[in-house]
């Protein structure tokens, strides 16, 4: 799987509710892998992802090192309208932060 350059969200309104797909750009190093020089790559992974709809928290994801590189996840939301704002914020174990935003289509 290739690297993606930035965090992306797709949110679509369907008959059964809103479906949100999230793809984050993150290497998710476990701290056990080695690079070409046989040195350990230090751990760097997303720990906490928050999803908000119109500013209200709807889902919290806690990740360990076993979440795949460039974390992807999708989930459903009950109801929703076209134009709702979906916001994702994440924090990794080194304190790096990221944010992405999208509107429901």
């Amino acid at each position: 799987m290739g690297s993606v350059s930035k965090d992306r969200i797709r949110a679509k309104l369907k008959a059964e509710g809103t479906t949100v797909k999230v793809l984050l750009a993150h290497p998710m190093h476990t701290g056990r892998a080695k690079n070409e020089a046989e040195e350990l790559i230090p751990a760097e992974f997303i720990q906490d992802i928050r999803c908000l709809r119109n500013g209200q928290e709807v889902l919290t994801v806690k990740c360990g090192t076993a979440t795949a590189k460039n974390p992807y996840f999708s989930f459903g939301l009950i109801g929703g309208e076209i134009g709702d704002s979906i916001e994702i914020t994440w924090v990794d174990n080194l304190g790096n932060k990221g944010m992405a935003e999208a509107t429901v289509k």
Partner: protein
Amino acid sequence: MRCLNWKVLANSIDHNRRLILKGAVSSTTLALVVSSGLLAPKRLLAHWPKDAFNAQTLEDALQVLLGETEIKSNDKVKFKVGSPPTYAVNGASVPIEIQSSLTGIEQVSVLVENNPFPLAMNFELTSETQLPLKSFIKIAEDSNVYAVIRAQGKLYSTVRFVEVDIGGCG
């Protein structure tokens, strides 16, 4: 500081009462500030259940995360791992999908028994969230993968055995 004030004002009941009220207000304000998310970054890190994610056996992870190790298997939890199911060519990226007919789901956890740290992901749902949940996880070697759902205070789980060609936890 407050102790000193107390002593000084100890002879006046009125003053004392005011001080107590004042103290109560300030502690509520503090609680509000904390819960409003002004301290969000610190809170985010502090809330990561470190002990559960660093647990090295399935039992420990379950014990720390959910407070129980004996969880009954339940067919109300539909759980797909791998593509095609139960098989993964590349352990670094194994698709998972969790679906359930249960209502009032509060928490969904994914655990890989033979990983160095079994707990892979933990979803905390609200009343607005609905399944299915889909994601990708890393699996080090052939292993049982558990999906545990907490719904209305009860725990339900499903287990799937997955064969992995290339381990994905290096």
